Every structure is written in C-alpha cells, then in structure tokens.
C-alpha cells in the first residue's frame, strides 16, 4: 500500500456546491499509460482473468476501473480496436498485483483475451469513483450480472465479506461465480442455481430484510430492476454503470449518462452512482 494516495474531493470542477453523485472515493492515477506484465491468464468458463503486476500504480478502490490495451492493438475485426477499453478492477492482491475479468464480446476484449503470461497490458488508472461504505450499519448486499461481478469481488474482499447474488446467462458464464465467496447463483437457463433472474433472488432477500445497502453491477436491464426494487423499499443502492468510453479521464465528454441532475461523465463522476440519482439505469448504447 506504499505508493498509495487516497483523496476525497467534491466534484468541484464541474459541479460545485453539489453533493457528489456517488458515496465513493477515488485513488489518483499516475499520469501516463504504463505497461503491466501479465503474470497469469486463467479461464473461468466463458471468462478470462488476467492477473498482472503493476509496481508503479497505487492500490485502487473497489469500483474503480482501468483503461486497458495491448501492444499490437488494432488489426482485429473491422480494423479495430483503436481506443483502450474500460475494465473494473476484479481484485487487488498483495505486491501490486491487479486482476481483471474479461469477456470476449468484440475486437478489444478479444485481443485482451489472447494475452498470455509474460506479455504486457498497457494501462491507465485507477480511474473513476469507487463504492462507498454502507451507511446506518446496513448490511452490504452484492448483486452482479455477468462480467458485472468484477467490481463486487474486490468490494467483497475489502468489506471482509458480504452476501452476493449473481446471475449469468448460462453454465459456462456461471463459472464466474467462483470469483466471489459464497455467492447465490441464478442462470437464465437454469443450468446452475436458480432458474431465472438474479433480481428474483434480490427481491427475496429484500423482502426478508430491506435494511441493506445494495451494490450492483451488470447489464442495464438488471441494474434498472435493482434500482426499481430498491427504490420501492427505500433501500440505498450504489450502481456501477457502463457506458462507451474513449478516454476514461474526463477528456472526451463521450461517456455521459443522464441523471436527475443532467448528464454526468461516467468516467469521472462514476462509474459508481447512487441509484437515487438516476431516473433509469438503462443507458443508451450499452449492453450487448
């Protein structure tokens, strides 16, 4: 934790006199892109986990993300990728190790999934605002869908444990559940755990005891269900959203999502957003 800096700043620059949109905080990123050696590439069903060494980077907060690329970026499907891609940190081990969970859904993730131990990840980060601690002694409840489990794994580590509900499309993806401790699993096709949506499990949990803070990450439709379920029960929820990003550090204004207070740049004012700030978690252009 040596080189680590933790700062809490209001959104002074572009929203002075506003309370932040997220309870989370950020760790500053080194100012440049750096190479992080891949130490291990491991397959979890449909997902790849890359563990890498980042000796020059600080320890990130849970919920923060990195912009990742590889050498010989480009030249894939449709002559892409060109820009780096955003990935939540999955885990932050000792000795400046970071892990990322990647699903191959297009030319950028495809290239990253090809990387082998010994090759370099090019990274900028940690970026964005992470999760904030639960308030009022509420129990943390993690709800993840697909690759959305990534930020929940490191958050579960930091919290020293938390119940986790996770949903996947099918059995190969449900292998990802192994990345969380004691997760209850739902699959669309019923091949593993509950047959149906992870939000079925969430409803059950909240109906049992709504005194929780929900931390959720996953596809837009899932997050929207989480938002509605929590709003109905006045359960606070912190949602880690996704949107298309070119830069990840506020430079391009491309990653905006609508909130009750107007557009925010998700990369600097998110990706974790208080559910209460959103009218909807359905973000245009997201989800595959």
């Amino acid at each position: 934790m040596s080189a680590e800096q933790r700062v809490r700043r209001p959104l002074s620059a572009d929203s002075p006199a506003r309370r932040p949109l997220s309870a989370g905080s950020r760790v500053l990123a080194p100012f440049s892109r750096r190479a992080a050696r891949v130490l291990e590439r491991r397959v979890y069903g449909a997902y790849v986990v890359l563990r890498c060494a980042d000796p020059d980077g600080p320890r990130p907060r849970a919920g923060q993300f990195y912009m990742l690329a590889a050498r010989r970026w480009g030249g894939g499907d449709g002559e892409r990728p060109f820009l780096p891609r955003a990935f939540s940190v999955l885990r932050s081990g000792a000795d400046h190790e970071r892990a990322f969970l990647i699903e191959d859904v297009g030319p950028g993730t495809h290239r990253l999934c090809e990387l082998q131990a010994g090759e370099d990840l090019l990274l900028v980060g940690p970026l964005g605002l992470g999760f904030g601690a639960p308030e009022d002694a509420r129990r943390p409840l993690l709800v993840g869908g697909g690759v959305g489990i990534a930020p929940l794994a490191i958050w579960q580590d930091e919290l020293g444990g938390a119940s986790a509900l996770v949903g996947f499309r099918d059995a190969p993806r449900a292998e990802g559940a192994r990345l969380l401790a004691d997760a209850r699993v739902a699959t669309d096709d019923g091949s593993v755990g509950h047959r149906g949506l992870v939000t079925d499990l969430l409803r059950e949990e909240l109906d049992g005891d709504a005194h929780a803070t929900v931390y959720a990450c996953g596809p837009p439709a899932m997050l929207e269900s989480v938002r509605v379920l929590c709003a109905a029960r006045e359960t606070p929820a912190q949602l880690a959203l996704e949107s298309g990003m070119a830069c990840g550090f506020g430079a391009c204004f491309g990653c905006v999502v609508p909130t009750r207070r107007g557009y925010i740049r998700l990369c600097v004012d998110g990706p974790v957003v208080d559910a209460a700030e959103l009218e909807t978690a359905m973000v245009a252009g997201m989800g595959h």
Partner: protein
Amino acid sequence: MNAHAAATPTELSGIELAHPIINGSGTFDAIAARRVFGDALIGQFPFAAFVSKTVTVAPREGNPPPRLWETPGGLINSIGLPNKGLRRYLAEDLPELAALPVPLIVNVMGFTGDEVVELVSAFSVRDEVAALELNVSCPNVETGLVMGADPGEVTALLRRVRPLTEKPLIVKLTPNATDVVAVARAAQDAGASAVSLINTIRGMALDPRTGHPWLGGTTGGVSGPAVRAVALAQVHAVARGVGIPIVAMGGVQNGRDALDLIMAGATVVAVGTESFRDPAAGTRISRELAALCENSSISRHGTPLNC
C-alpha cells in the same frame, strides 16, 4: 533517436511556448484531469499551451448519448459542445485554468455574430487568456451557411470581432469545405492572427442491431489517424495560401506525424485523439519531435525547422 533531445521553444503570434505541441480543443479537460491525476498533471503538463473546450454563450448539455463510435484508426464523436456557458466558465473555470503552468487559449463559438462579439469581448479583458480560438464550424443561424465553409461568412465575422481584442485570434477551420484555402485566406485578410486545422470530418455510424443511426446526434466528426493524410493535405495547401501561422492537427500520434505537419507548414501542432489513448501523449510526442529534429538534416525551404 535521442529520446531526451531538448524541446525547441516556439512562438505563436507572440505567445511563447516551451515546445510546439499543444492540445486540440475538446480533447483534454485539465480540470477533470487534475481530479484524476492530481498534481502530477501540473508537474508534468503535456502541452506547451492549453486550449479549452469550446465555450458558448448559453450553457449546453450537449448531445444525447451514445456520443462515441470507434472506426478503423479513428473515432467518431458527437459530443455537441457541452459546456457551462460563458458566465459560469468565467467565474469557475478561468481561475482554475490560470493555475496551469502554460498559456491558456480559449476556444469559443457563437451561433450568431452577436454571440461571437459577446464571447470575444468577455475574454478580451481577462489576463488569464493568452489567445482566442474561434470555432466557426457551426451553421450560421441567420444565413444557414456553415460559417467556416464560406469565405464571405468568415470575412464578415472577423471584420466585426477583430477590432474587439488585442489578443491573438486563431480561426479554426472546418475540413468539410470545398475550398479550405479560400476560407483561410479570407480569415487572414480580415485580420486573423493564425488559423488552426483540421477540425473533425463529418462521419456516421449505424447501430448494428437496429440499422438506425448510432450516435445521439445522428452524425458526428471523425478524428484520429484515419484523418491524418487529409489533415496533411489541407495544412500543406493552406500553408501555400496564407502567410499567418498555422496550428495543425489531425491524427497526430508521434513525433514523425508532428514533424510532417511542421514540414508542411505548421508552426504549432495539436494532439487530440491520441491523448485518449495515453493522457501523457503530448509529452512523448514533443520529445520524439525534438529528437527527430536534432538528428535530422531536414529543413523547410532551406531554413531550419521550427521544432
């Protein structure tokens, strides 16, 4: 290549620059970057001047998302000029930007001549501002013509605003014009201190799932390496048509690309999209440029290069 070659100080319309690499408007937000990178941003500021994102009179939310689409070697953006508007920019951002270790160039756009007058007048009296860049790539709401594509529109606009300020006025040209040289010449003749080019090239993408336009703004602008050859051609042509300095940009990724634009006639080179891939790209590019210039026997029109 000597990676530690000394950067060559440069001068743009009276503004002293430590090296010839600056940023393209709208591709670097120094205030947001400070939140993300902390004081390292100030200590290692990558550009020799900071160009603001376009400021308009009224606040703008910008276009609905999605705003980005990746293309082969490039990017389409339809950001839609979100900004807090002149009043709040003056009150909130200008003081913060004054803390940067480099000169500040404010980029402004008006939808009418009156708006441009208001913007230029307001920044003209602010000491924090070293120069103004006029973004004229919007349609004139009165005539319907895209201001920056029409020499007559540019002349009329500059005639009005040139007398309002003693600061350098840089006119940012649009590449979506039949005759960019004619527009540059009109700008020069009406008193522009410099021209900058290229802005993004009109482009579009469809949502593969629906076949409808992907971008919230329907069309957008292409930037990045994909437009580099077009930028070089326009800079080369404009340099032969005007005598005022040129701020050149479009797809610059490394020192070689910057040197090409300088060879073609640019005084200063701006980096846009490449900063998205590496926030410190400006520093790398200025070092690569210095090394190339030191080791190269290349000179322009027989005179040593400004790099």
